[in-house]
């Protein structure tokens, strides 16, 4: 297995793709890692990523960008780009990634592999370096749904060391792969098929939905009106939490520590100035601002209220349907360097994945075709703790199609 470098591995460097932790070696395994080891998984290496999980292309790694195996001039997606690329290129049979705003699903879709973000709290965050505590989740990236089911089985379940981990029992995910989705009510949210989507993506996703209909699903048009607010909501809440979560990196206890003249405060400032990359600094500043007195009500508090509305939107829709089908991203893998000058343009590739994290729901990315030779992912979203249902839908689809078996030429 490959483990995204945001998860602690005992005795093995865990850098979070940051200069700040370039030489940091944890003294314990993250729970998800420990559980996989207990089940006999062998660690092949740590996965490159966007620094501290912040990014959508793995170009924010402090060390080097990872290249998409389908076209090495293009990004693999992010922030779990290294993990998705490794599985896609056959370098590892599966990997553990993390997803805060789409960081498992989007790179899985860009690299043509299968990824799953579990329900918030389904997998322990103990040992996961925190970016946005109320959004982060650990999940599998693998060649197909059946493999994802095996991996999820090993890592899911309550952990007393994570107060936010759910006490609910873990079902038998592999047993849920019946290959039968007849009667499944599948919702298609109209807001996820807006203007500006890549035509090839639209075509591939629409074809996939038709295929699911052929397999027995009942397709229904639904609406999630709060979709348009999810991006703004995310880019207030996530940076706010990250501004506190990354405050600990000050060179006092571990990690990069700036030495030189000046007092302790200056040393801390220089440590953070040199240790963090530009996107990380951008989000810390955004977050500190959103939480500051005088602005807290207008930004952070407001965003949390909008978040409740987003959650309610989904809950409402799931009274009518059993799952949702949508694109993972409006685009396919873009050239390296194409969006690095425009942060907002970069943020936009996650518009369809962000709302899911806001609501804490489980979702998958399933390979469903190509656009101009580049992989397209179908996103399946389910209600709280419906991983078994999503895995079955994906599995059934993968029994009837060959997209997930395609391999890049390298």
């Amino acid at each position, binding site marked *: 297995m490959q483990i995204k470098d945001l998860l602690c591995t005992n005795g093995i460097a865990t850098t979070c793709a940051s200069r700040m932790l370039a030489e940091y070696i944890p003294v314990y395994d993250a729970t998800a890692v420990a559980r996989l080891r207990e089940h006999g998984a062998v660690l092949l290496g740590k996965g490159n990523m966007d620094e501290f999980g912040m990014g959508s292309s793995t170009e924010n790694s402090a060390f080097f960008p990872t290249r998409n195996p389908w076209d090495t001039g293009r990004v693999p997606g992010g922030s779990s780009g290294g993990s998705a690329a490794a599985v896609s290129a056959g370098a590892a049979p599966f990997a553990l990634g993390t997803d805060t705003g789409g960081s498992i699903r989007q790179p899985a879709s860009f690299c043509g592999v299968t990824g799953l973000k579990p329900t918030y709290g389904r997998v322990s965050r103990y040992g996961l370096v*925190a970016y946005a505590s*109320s959004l982060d989740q650990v999940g599998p990236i693998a060649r197909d749904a059946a493999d994802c089911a095996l991996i999820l089985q090993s890592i899911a379940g309550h952990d007393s060391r994570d107060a936010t981990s759910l006490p609910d029992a873990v079902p038998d995910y592999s047993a849920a792969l019946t290959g039968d989705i007849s009667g499944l009510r599948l919702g298609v949210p109209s807001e996820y098929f807006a203007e500006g989507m890549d035509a090839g993506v639209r075509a591939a996703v629409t074809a996939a939905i038709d295929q699911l209909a052929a397999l027995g699903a009942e397709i229904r048009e639904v609406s999630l009106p709060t979709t348009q607010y999810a991006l703004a909501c995310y880019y207030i809440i996530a940076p706010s939490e990250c501004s506190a979560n990354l405050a600990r990196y000050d060179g006092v206890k571990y990690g990069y520590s700036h030495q030189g003249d000046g007092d302790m405060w200056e040393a801390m400032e220089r440590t953070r100035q040199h240790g963090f990359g530009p996107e990380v600094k951008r989000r810390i500043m955004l977050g500190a601002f959103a939480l500051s007195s005088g602005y807290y009500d207008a930004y952070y508090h407001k965003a949390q209220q909008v978040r409740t509305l987003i959650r309610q939107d989904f809950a409402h829709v799931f009274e009518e349907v059993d799952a949702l089908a949508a694109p993972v991203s409006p685009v396919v893998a873009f050239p390296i360097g194409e969006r690095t000058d425009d942060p907002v343009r970069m943020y936009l590739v996650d518009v369809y994945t962000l709302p899911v994290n806001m609501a804490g729901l489980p979702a998958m990315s399933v390979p469903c075709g190509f656009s101009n030779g580049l992989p397209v992912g179908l996103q399946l979203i389910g209600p709280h703790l419906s991983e078994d249902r999503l895995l079955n839908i994906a599995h059934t689809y993968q029994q009837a199609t060959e997209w997930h078996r395609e391999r890049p030429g390298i």
Partner: protein
Amino acid sequence: MGCEITPSSKFDRKNYFYPDLPKNYQISQYDIPLCQNGQVSFEFEGELRTVALRRIHLEEDAGKSIHAEVTGDPTRSFMDFNRAGVPLLEIVSEPELHSPEEAIAYCRAVKEILEYIEVSDCNMEEGSLRCEPNLSLRPKGSKELGTRTEIKNKNSFQELIDAMEYEVKRQARILDAGEEVVQETLLFDASTGKTVAMRGKEEADDYRYFPEPDLVHVQISDEWIEESQPTLPELPAARRKRFISDYDISPDNAEFLTNTRPLAEFFDEAARLSGEPTTCANWIMGDLTRLLNTAEIEIQDAKVTPAHLNELIQLIGDATISGKIAKSVLDDAFETGKMPKQIVSEKGLAQITDTSEIETIVLQVVEENPGPAQDYRDGTKKAIGFLVGQVMRATRGKANPQLVNEILTRVLSTD
């Protein structure tokens, strides 16, 4: 303390940078604390004072900074993270204390309650109890509170008083000069007796509080409160009142006997078993305390139990042993843990109460000491003391002194 318990309280992050705070935020409770309102009552200058509480909340401790004053090395400071993350209970009163002495009385009352309910061992030297006064001055008659300062770093109640008294003078000097007091946190330097401003930018103006996403809400149900209520021990003030009214002991003695919870419980049980609270009190405050102090142990670690004391009192009461012998029996019981009856029989300490046996010895002593006997008959009544002493000696202290007195008096009077 009569607080309202919040049914669902949450934790918040208090964000500021300081090297002794590992995450550079402290998990605390901002707007929805565990408890709100409530009060603490205590005796002060002969009156009952009640101070209102604002809130009680949980937060995590930071680490400890170790600077040059301790290490002697001015070029470096050290951080001890051992206590970082340990939970603290913060009890905040309303600003209703009007003198350093009153503040101390309040602190002692709170400490007593916390010790009684076994929440903390309240050791100021070790840091398991920290009292942080917030102090301000205002012109007499003014209703508005002045600018306050907070004082940290006191390791004993004495230092606490010294710190407050110094700060009162310091603020008075500033205000008399027409200047303003700066709101800040001060450290008390015990070596100079002064308060000094804390080093570094520890006070951030804006803590950017937001709900702690790594912890869930703390839910406390009414059922749990109802179930827990009866398990709470009787608090010291209530217990003292009960001792005074039910057992008829003096307020000073009640104070002594409720000094610690184990001591109060020992006395309570012994009084209940024996039905003689005053006698129990005397034994506890006298001989038992002496034995505990010499052995340097607390009553809960002693081998002597209320049952021991009760048996001892019974043995005195039915005249099996004299008060004097009882002292040595107690010493023995304290050493060995054996019950008094067993000690008395093993060592043959039972009093001689057989009047004819005593009379025989009395007659013998009177015969051997004609001088003092005559003195008594001639009017020197206290000469009998010597003769009693002789009888006691002859019986190795086992004769019942009262009987000896009676018989001697009779013998001397009839002769």
